[in-house]
């Protein structure tokens, strides 16, 4: 990992749905090693912003650079892993096993039906990383929401991305599983060197796992380190009490 390497650079980005502005004049840089939380209320443009980073929405005004290249000419999409907000909203009767879900991403570039022993090992290894070892043959619909979300993270990780983007991944997951889930993300960030971009409503997580914060309300109203954020006016406003800035990093 190169120190201070700029992985995603957004310059003067604005986006409109029909005539309604959703994002205005956003300038944001995501560096290698960041664990960035994008915070903001509903309708703040968080999901729109990451969809633009992923090339799922067209740029109407401004510029986005991925790994130094303009997004329009960017081809190495495998460097970005994505877990969408609606990942767990699939048909629960979809007849795919955990192994098949991960294989979708692993083999989509190979265009082959069959799998080699080594590739099977890759799947087992990635499942071990997310704590789902031995669950290869279980149909995805038979797992809990938390486990399903881990499978989608495994699918996003299997092609070795440098950035993992997650859109509100803990919706519908109980508090204890959320904690384990965020611990796992932190491990990925620290041990595996994966840059993480997390869209969330959960301010509680801010003090536990992340190292950078971006607050969005149509405009980017704050972008800085976790430490600065904890003592900022924005944080005091968000938690409603200025004297309760708890910081217990793991």
């Amino acid at each position: 990992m190169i120190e201070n390497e700029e992985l995603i650079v957004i310059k003067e980005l604005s986006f409109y749905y029909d005539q309604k502005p959703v994002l205005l004049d956003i300038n944001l840089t995501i560096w290698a090693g960041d664990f960035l939380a994008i915070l903001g209320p509903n309708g703040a443009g968080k999901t729109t912003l990451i969809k633009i980073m992923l090339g799922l929405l067209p740029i109407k005004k401004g510029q986005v650079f991925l790994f130094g290249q303009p997004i329009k000419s960017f081809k190495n999409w495998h460097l970005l892993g994505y877990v969408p907000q609606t990942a767990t909203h699939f048909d629960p009767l979809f007849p795919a096993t955990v192994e098949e879900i991960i294989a979708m991403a692993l083999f989509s570039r190979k265009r082959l039906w069959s799998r080699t022993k080594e590739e099977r090992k890759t799947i087992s290894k990635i499942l071990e990383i997310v704590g789902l070892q031995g669950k290869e043959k279980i149909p995805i619909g038979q797992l809990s929401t938390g486990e399903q979300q881990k499978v989608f993270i495994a699918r996003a990780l299997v092609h070795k991305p440098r950035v993992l983007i997650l859109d509100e991944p803990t919706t519908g997951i109980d508090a204890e599983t959320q904690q384990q889930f965020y611990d796992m993300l932190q491990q990925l960030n620290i041990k595996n060197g994966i840059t993480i971009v997390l869209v969330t409503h959960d301010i509680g997580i801010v003090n536990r796992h992340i190292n950078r914060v971006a607050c969005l309300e149509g405009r980017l109203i704050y972008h800085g380190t976790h430490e600065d954020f904890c003592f900022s006016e924005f944080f005091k406003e968000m938690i409603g009490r200025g004297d309760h800035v708890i910081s217990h990093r793991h």
Partner: protein
Amino acid sequence: MLFLIGIDWGISVNILWQYGFIQRALLAGLAIGVSSALLGLFLLLRREAMIGHGLGHIIFGGLALAFCLNLAPVPVALIIAILASLGMTKLKSRAGLHSDTAIAIFSSVGMATGVLLVTLVNRYGIDLLSFLFGDILAIDRNETILALALAIFVVAFLFIFYHQLLFLAFSPESAQAFGLKTNQLESLLTILTAITIVLGMKIVGLLLMTSLLVIPAASALQIASSFRASCFLAVIISSFSIMAGLWLALATDWPASATIVLISFLFFLGSFFKRKRRFL
């Protein structure tokens, strides 16, 4: 149970296989059955079960046009079906419509055009009706070869793009973010479906073609615990329905298309009850 009395239960498969028209019917039927079962799985998982029905209506319009202009019906129907399938994919993405809405618009326009053309030339002939209801025993050598070629192409396409298509069916947004050319894959899938329907209209007819796309796949999805197993099961159910339907039709003189469809429905009922028992 009176209808069972007239059945010649002793009809020998060996004797039947000696006839060229039966060989052609079985080969073409199995080829279309395999293609439809595999394509049907992806269509069902993408919630596009009615695309077969919609394309059938559009092809009816194409056939009517061919009859009006005194052109060969199958090539015209094929061109119209491919153009319409591309049009549906475009309309869906450009107008932001759901699949069922795009299918409904195209199918009603196709049917309306067909009815109008048939009425204008006052030629609701026997030829047009044979495409609506199919006649598997009247399939000629060229049609059999085309059906076999299609089956080989469909199996090869699914073999090559298996993981991409599964990714697209399961999570289109993630597949797109992963860099897959989802629009092109969707268009290819719809074009292959259109070709399968055009070639299958001789076997079960346009009106019943949806059943070959939907019922074996839906039966397999009831009981399979993995997608790979669904593929094998759908092919087996479709093939058995066609073989048993053809044999029963010959033994009873029942219409082959309707018999094939009803036998495949029996498979669906079987898998439905098997699933129900598993989850009780």
